[in-house]
């Protein structure tokens, strides 16, 4: 489209941000905006667990058991569908490869479920192979509840709504089914580099 907006001059972007790291339609944020559909849930760590389900529970870890698994540092860029990107965010967490290692490899999709009722769907191939983690630490500190603590999913190559806050488990599914935002018309996959914000993008 040839339309340009009279009087609009850009960019006023941070010149230090490498444009090759900022997907189309995004801008670099230096704070860490919070987006959630409802109140922030709070759960005591001694009542927290993480469960892999297939029909019913397949494997469950308590908080202590999860924290006893090997954690790794992760430094990644994250991209929110509301158009902010944040570069070089530093997390620590347990790779989903570790959690899914001995679990039935048949189902091709997962649905992450969370305290507060939030869900989001992902192909299993996008949460394995070193691409996704259950993170418990952000910038060296325990993950703040506002940002999904005690633990959230981290899937940095997809829009950040896929990195479900307050995650409590994964449901293994043979067929893809929409999670919370996907049911309201957000994209089933959500690749920021292809600007898959909404269904049909």
């Amino acid at each position, binding site marked *: 489209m040839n339309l340009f*907006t009279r009087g*609009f*001059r850009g960019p006023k*972007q941070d010149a230090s941000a490498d444009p090759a790291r900022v997907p189309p339609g995004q*801008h670099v944020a230096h704070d860490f905006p919070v987006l959630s559909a*409802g109140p922030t849930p709070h759960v005591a760590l001694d009542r927290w667990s993480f469960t892999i389900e297939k029909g019913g529970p397949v494997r469950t870890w308590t908080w202590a058991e999860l924290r006893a698994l090997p954690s790794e540092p992760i430094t990644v860029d994250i991209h929110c569908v509301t*158009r902010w990107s944040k570069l070089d965010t530093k997390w620590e967490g347990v790779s989903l490869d570790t959690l899914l290692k001995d679990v039935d490899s048949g189902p091709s999709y997962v649905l992450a479920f969370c305290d507060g009722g939030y869900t989001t769907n992902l192909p299993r191939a996008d949460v394995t192979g070193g691409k996704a983690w259950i993170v418990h630490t952000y910038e060296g500190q325990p993950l703040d509840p506002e940002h999904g603590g005690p633990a959230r999913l981290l899937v940095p190559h997809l829009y950040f709504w896929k990195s479900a806050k307050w995650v409590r488990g994964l449901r293994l599914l043979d067929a893809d089914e929409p999670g919370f935002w996907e049911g309201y018309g*957000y994209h089933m996959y959500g690749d920021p580099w292809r600007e898959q914000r*909404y269904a049909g993008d």
Partner: protein
Amino acid sequence: MAGTALRGGLTWVVATVSSVIEETPSARTLELDVPGWPGHLAGQHVDIRLTSEDGYRAERAYSIASAPGEAPAITVERLDNGEVSPYLTEEVRKGDAFEVRGPIGGYFVWRPEDGGPLFLAAGGSGVVPMRSILRHRRRSGSPVKARLLLSARTLEDVIYRAELEGPDVVHTLTRERPPGWSGYARRVDLDLLREVAWPAIENPLAYVCGPTPFVEVVAAGLVALGYALQRVRTERFGGA
């Protein structure tokens, strides 16, 4: 609740600014002429895209300020370090054009059949979707009662003040009060919510929109007062 809108994808279309309304020293409303606008629900938002002469593009999402059945309008508050809001609040004038797509969003919406009683809490420009909801309630003849809590820095920062004023609007001014101010004069806290929010026993439906710290305090406070988690819908905006 069924999903809404967005079926079949969204395309960018050209919107022309049909009028500019100064709301406060830092906020203005832009009424938009969007050919083929499919109509919107109260609480939805719209994406806008600005393109500079040299091809640079910036996109942002804004809540829709008008009621369903009215032409789309957005109200923008200037962020001093922003890239888009200074343009929309200072430079843009009637007849200018940019691209929009929408409406978007199906969760932070209110339809008359959703009922109430409605408790709406807004911090600063978080009042924008609340105006759409309140106008829609009035225009649709909905019998549900609604109370609006507005937190602003000063009285002159209150957007749509003349339109919204009424017995069920409660202000709190966090920074500066006019002489003789008898309303609340602090950031929202649990005690304030206990005094102004509908009692939980009435099973209210709450919408909370504003900056993150405001939304966190209000949403957590309503849950502490007994509101059902699923009856507290939030929309937060960051500094970006």
